């Protein structure tokens, strides 16, 4: 960890902050495209002109766009992204109720999918070209090129409808015992993991193959190092950076998947909250949720970047 690396990481952090700022402009700008007047839309046709004017002032709609953006950004930074237009509750409170559920779902999915994906990716890389590798390749290509909801619906049909192993709907309230926890989270986590595992296994396989092809591994193989030692002691340490990179990038696909999965299983998470807010055009809530998801996405890609820098000295001189 020398000064160059530190400076590079700080640069990346700065770039990520800059991107997040651009994203905030995009999110706010896109929602400002809304045709018509938000105040009129919220109050409905029967509203008096005074009521509309009052709400316009409360929502700062009588201010110019750039000022509204600054007010919104300031509120966001202070943890107060305004109130919902639909049920008038503070957005922070609505999000606070849902965020832990989504984080729990994401954490459980990561805990299941990372070890499984790495095991599959590494074994496929080691036995490259074998029947096992080709089957894994076919399965993972199919899984990443079909919609998430196909995976989820097939999982429900197989495990809940035909085999009766698991309940189809999840209820977060019941997490009193490990068994209840397992039963209520099994289907969402299983479906979400399928998608992530496929992505991650493909990427970590590709990362390890790059190292296995290098001449020092060839040398080790020629001098008769046993296969297990060859992979674990010789190849893996050098492939670790690209693999961590692959894991972080794959986890960022959780963000798309979680939206679909929370909807299918009616799971009370942040993504479901956002989808409902889009349907009712509850702009402050949509904006805040979008910012949280984009920040999480940027954080994961940032981690992937940093892993790449730490593992590959050549990236340090750019």
């Amino acid at each position, binding site marked *: 960890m020398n000064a160059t690396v530190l400076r590079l990481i700080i640069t990346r952090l700065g770039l990520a902050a800059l*991107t997040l700022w651009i994203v905030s402009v995009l999110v706010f700008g896109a929602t400002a495209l809304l045709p018509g007047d938000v105040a009129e839309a919220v109050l409905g046709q029967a509203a008096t002109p005074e009521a509309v004017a009052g709400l316009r002032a409360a929502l700062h709609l009588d201010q110019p766009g750039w000022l509204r953006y600054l007010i919104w950004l300031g509120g966001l930074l202070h943890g107060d992204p305004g109130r919902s237009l639909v049920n008038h509750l503070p957005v922070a409170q609505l999000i606070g109720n849902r965020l832990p559920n989504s984080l729990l779902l994401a954490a459980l999915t990561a805990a299941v999918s990372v070890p499984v994906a790495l095991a599959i990716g590494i074994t496929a890389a080691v036995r490259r070209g074998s029947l096992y590798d080709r089957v894994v390749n076919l399965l993972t290509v199919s899984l990443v090129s079909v*919609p998430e909801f196909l995976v989820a619906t097939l999982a429900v049909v197989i495990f809940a409808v035909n085999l009766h192993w698991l309940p189809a709907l999840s209820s977060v309230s019941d997490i009193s015992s490990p068994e209840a926890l397992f039963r209520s989270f099994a289907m969402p986590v299983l479906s979400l993991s399928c998608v992530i595992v496929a992505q991650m296994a493909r990427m970590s396989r590709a990362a390890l193959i790059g190292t296995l092809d290098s001449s020092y591994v060839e040398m080790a193989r020629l001098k008769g190092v046993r296969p297990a030692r060859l992979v674990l002691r010789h190849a893996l340490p050098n492939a670790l950076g690209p693999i961590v990179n692959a894991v972080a990038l794959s986890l960022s696909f959780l963000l798309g998947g979680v939206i679909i999965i929370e909807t299918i299983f009616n799971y009370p998470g942040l993504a479901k909250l956002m989808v409902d807010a889009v349907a009712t055009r509850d702009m402050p809530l949509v904006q805040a949720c979008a910012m949280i998801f984009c920040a999480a996405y940027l954080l994961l890609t940032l981690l992937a970047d940093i892993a790449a820098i730490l593992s590959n000295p050549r990236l340090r001189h750019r």
Partner: protein
Amino acid sequence: MSDLTVPLARWHLPTPGRIGLAIVAVWLVVAVLSPWLAPYAAGNVTAADVFAPMSRAFPLGTDYLGRDMLSRVLLGARITVGVSLAATALACFTGVTLALAAAVHGGWVDAVLSRVLDALISVPSLMFSLVIVASLGSSLGVLILTAAVIYTPGAYRTARALAVNINALDFVTVARARGEGTWFIMREEILPNMVLPVLTDFGLRFVYVVLLLSGLSFLGLGVQPPNADWGSLVRENLEGLFDGAPAVIVPAIAIATLTIGVNLLIDNLPTRRNGHAR
């Protein structure tokens, strides 16, 4: 580049590629001819029971209102394939045009285009479309434009990498020395030499667009009734899922055949890129 000089007739397409081509061709034909292929007219409630299993009269069962699923899927192909093709064509056209301009002009044009389009990539695609749909609604026009905007940067990136390489070749330098204009070099010297990789990229982006749009429709935020694409068909029949009705699985499988078919085809084209990641 040598691949491109081989005449079309002599390309050897491996078997998986042929299978992919056949699947894609079938869906294209269905999309065009569906009003004549569907056994029942759009929206006809024809069966007594809802979520009926597969039978002779209803080969794919019936949906939540008792409509024939086969007809619904055939008619849905039109929207799914049509809207996705329009969005992909728009994205690739814009991306390739901007990429050619960036490569040939270089300098600040290249710098500005690349910076701006790179910033767009850093917003997750489903999130971006949710925000747009929240403010502009989800008419077919908005959906096509949104998907096109989301996938333009990717098309630009691929095409720019290709065009920059071709731009450095001798025949382009010769054309420039001859005094040809920027437009001529873009269209006559560079573009013909990147047709195949651009087509492959088109297929890859088409898959992303299909997945994005059917995901949106599945959330109820994409194609709106009375139109229905395959994503909407999955959504409207979701309550039949827990009885294991074919109505909810069949449209999802239709999407999968289309996306896997396109993947098989483009993975086996002569200049293959490894299609992965979304």
